[in-house]
């Protein structure tokens, strides 16, 4: 079986040559390449699996003709094939150019390799150890509930390596992350329900251990859902745990401040820049530099170096999250939010680690402050509506608070809907705690899945629940 000439380790130089050659035909060119590899080990009550994901790599060359991008993407990494494909497309791009167009800024010159450190590198850890750890999680979870019909422990790791090249920059980064999750399905003869928990962290297997501590609590919570009735609809005072807070941050103002949506007239946020959109104790960040989080990186897929973005500062909407195209046409300063699902897809403005900043109140004070309301945990999914500023957040746990105390009454599932500014303006207390579980990801509309994280402190606010 023949080896190919082009290897990931040598791509930086090769792509620099391609960019230089392409810029003889079009005014701006850049290139992005990625390689991903990892392992997913899972053990459930009925079966187990270990799937080592072999390296998956490919590249995209972007050609800007002053008006639009022409992009060539492939995993046929034969040098002549790539060069031929790119130069044919460059000729098409040049021919399609109608006027002078706009210049794209390549940014300051920089050649650098970045790396997230991992004490126990995922690629060096043994497959059997990963399977054994998944089995430990499964056994602990299954043993925690006599009503468990299926309990699953899943651990996975992924090492993503990326290269970005334009005429000024030659960047590369290595981003390892590890995840552990557990899921329990319980039944009582007539009703079946399911609950899950876990965490994802940047780095290596030194991060494992979260699920083993949480298994008994998860099983007990799942059993409680078997007898949980549905909620009667209405407006309520709520306390959201950090996971729910994170979903609110992500759906309410994360998507609403992705500036490609501004440019398309698809986000109301553009009209509210430097105006109040939340209560004065509310601050929201998107931060790809947050240490240890699995949405963290050093540069985005369009070459912008990572830095925190303070989206809302004490209730005032200050800044959006940009990709290269929208920042250029809107005249905004770039933030490192130009991200692709993979080399096969286009770059859009996307979130990274998005969260509310911690406040001043002990989380216990938030519960104690509610006379009659609900404590929200276990979020399941949400959906954005940047133009209408509607919001949908769903979850599996709403626990009644009466007289400042949590009761045994749990209702499930729960959906929160409303108008984003109403929800954010109603934030009356912000906890001094902070947590990001790191699980999950984010789509743009209905596709373009990227890894993001969300979280923050406990929040107290008012919401329409059903």
């Amino acid at each position, binding site marked *: 079986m023949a080896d190919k000439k082009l290897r990931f380790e040598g791509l930086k130089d090769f792509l620099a040559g391609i960019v230089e050659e392409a810029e003889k035909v079009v005014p701006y060119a850049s290139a992005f390449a990625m390689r991903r590899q990892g392992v997913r080990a899972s053990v459930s009550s009925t079966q187990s699996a*270990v799937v080592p*994901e*072999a390296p998956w790599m490919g590249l995209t060359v972007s050609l800007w003709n002053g008006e639009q991008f022409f992009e060539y*993407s492939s995993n046929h990494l034969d040098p002549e094939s790539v060069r031929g494909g790119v130069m044919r497309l460059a000729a098409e791009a040049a021919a399609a150019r109608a006027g002078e167009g706009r210049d794209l800024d390549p940014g300051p010159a920089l050649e650098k390799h970045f790396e997230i450190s991992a004490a126990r590198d995922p690629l060096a850890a043994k497959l059997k150890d990963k399977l054994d750890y998944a089995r430990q999680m499964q056994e602990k979870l299954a043993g925690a509930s006599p009503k468990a019909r*299926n309990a699953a422990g899943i651990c996975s790791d992924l090492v993503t390596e990326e290269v970005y090249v334009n005429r000024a920059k030659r960047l590369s980064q290595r981003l390892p992350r590890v995840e552990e999750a557990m899921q329990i399905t319980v039944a009582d003869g007539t009703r079946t329900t399911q609950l899950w928990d876990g965490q994802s962290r940047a780095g290596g297997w030194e991060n494992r251990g979260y699920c083993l501590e949480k298994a008994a609590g998860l099983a007990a919570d799942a059993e409680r859902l078997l007898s949980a009735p549905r909620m009667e609809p209405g407006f309520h005072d709520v306390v959201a745990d950090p996971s729910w807070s994170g979903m609110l941050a992500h759906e309410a103002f994360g998507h609403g401040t992705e500036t490609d949506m501004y*440019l398309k007239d698809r986000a109301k946020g553009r009209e509210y820049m430097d105006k109040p959109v939340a209560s004065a104790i509310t601050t929201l960040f998107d931060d790809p530099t947050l240490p240890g989080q699995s949405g963290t990186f050093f540069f985005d897929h369009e070459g912008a170096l990572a830095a925190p973005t303070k989206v809302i500062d004490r209730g005032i909407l200050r800044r959006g999250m940009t990709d290269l195209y929208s920042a250029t046409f809107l005249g905004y300063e770039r933030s490192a939010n130009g991200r692709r699902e993979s080399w096969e897809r286009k770059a859009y403005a996307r979130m990274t680690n998005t969260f509310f900043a911690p406040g001043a109140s002990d989380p216990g004070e938030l519960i104690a402050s509610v006379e009659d309301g609900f404590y929200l945990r276990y979020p399941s999914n949400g959906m954005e509506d940047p133009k209408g500023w509607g919001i949908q957040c769903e979850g599996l746990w709403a626990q009644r608070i009466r007289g400042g105390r949590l009761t045994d009454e749990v209702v499930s599932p729960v*959906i929160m*809907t409303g108008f984003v500014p109403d929800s954010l303006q109603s934030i009356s207390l912000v906890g001094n705690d902070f947590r990001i579980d790191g699980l999950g990801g984010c789509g743009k509309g209905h596709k373009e899945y990227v890894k993001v994280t969300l979280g923050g402190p406990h929040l107290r606010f008012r919401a329409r629940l059903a």
Partner: protein
Amino acid sequence: MLIPITDRLHAEEGISGWQVREIRKKSLQWFLNKERTESRRQVDSRTFEVEVLVNHVEKRGGGKERATGSSRFVTDEASFGRFEEDLRSAVFAASLVKNQAYSMTDPGPWVPNLSLADPALGASGFAPLAALSDRIRQAAGREAGMRLGAAEFFADTVQVRHVNSQGLQAAQETSLLSWEFALVSDDPSGEVFRTGKRRRLSDFDLEGDLAAAAESLRRRASAGPPATGRFDVVFSGEALDHLFDFFAAQASAAAKYNRLTLSEPGKPLLQAGPGASAFHLWHDATLPWAVGSYRVDPSGVPGCRRMLVEDGVLRAYWANSRYAQYLGIPATGELGNLVVAPGKHGDSGLLEAAGGRPLYHLFEFSYFEPNPVTGEFSAEIRGGEEIGPGGRRPVKGGSVSGNSAQAIGSAKFSASTVQRERYQGPGLVRCENLTLAGD
């Protein structure tokens, strides 16, 4: 490259079975940012998905029992130099796992002769997408007070060659046109976002979809939230894409094997209320040109049609090769299109309020997907209307909640039918007594 891979797998002594799927994909993508073309992309890829099985003999109780471990990896031209390493790693991974025994799919007597690849999408480069871009600009330009926010068109063609250790050899070619567009209005909160998929270019009624979106946007401008309480609800439009997913999950052999459902063949999945339409559900991977149709599924099972639910009673599970072997049932292949038998009700009758209470007709949501384990659903309403004794008014905002088994147990189905991406069945489904949270 396929032949060297299969030759190598034939020679591998440590495995009891294998399959390889060679996937060649070409994707052309076109993006409009308002009226401007933001980018056009061409993507070519060729990958090989390799799966290996390793048999073990397990001592259990007083006897011995056969067990199977499996693993898989994806390779491509760039990774081919490390094929031996990837194969060793997968075989080792499979040797760590001891699941109930199964084997690769035996070759079937036939595969359905379905046309799934549209030449109009495969052979003309960017021309079809450029034409769609022009058409959508023109169609949006005809809508007063509205404009195009964004549009995306993807034309994908995929060729798959499937070979396994049992002698199966199959091939299929598919095409898929995917689109999305956002129409925005002068109303500060006015947007309608639409997505869709079809196998054939000619099945995409762009002008019709855009006109419907424009009508929806006009309605939303004067819409308010629904009332709060329990009401009859008629679902149509995008709600139908997932309204029956809970029943498909209950009829899944994988869910049964993994104890995620209490369903049993011959037992009801719902309690039918008085006057409810008979509920019959099929898995059908053979509908001509439907998005959920296929000649062979990823485990090598030929596409077929199978009744899953008859009169609300579970009749059969849909199953890929592995779970069919586990449950000892015929394999149907992965879930294809969901087909629901229509009812006898006219559209106008289903859309009449009764008993002096308003009825809600809901057709657009933020996200509508019932929980596959519990059947519970909740969704924010983006488009609908309240039909009351005093007339009709558009609604948006608030939510609708219910349980799939209860909702469909009370449901009346229209005689009229629609074909959506993976759904064919009644165009209107009227459910009793769902919870609305609004004013």
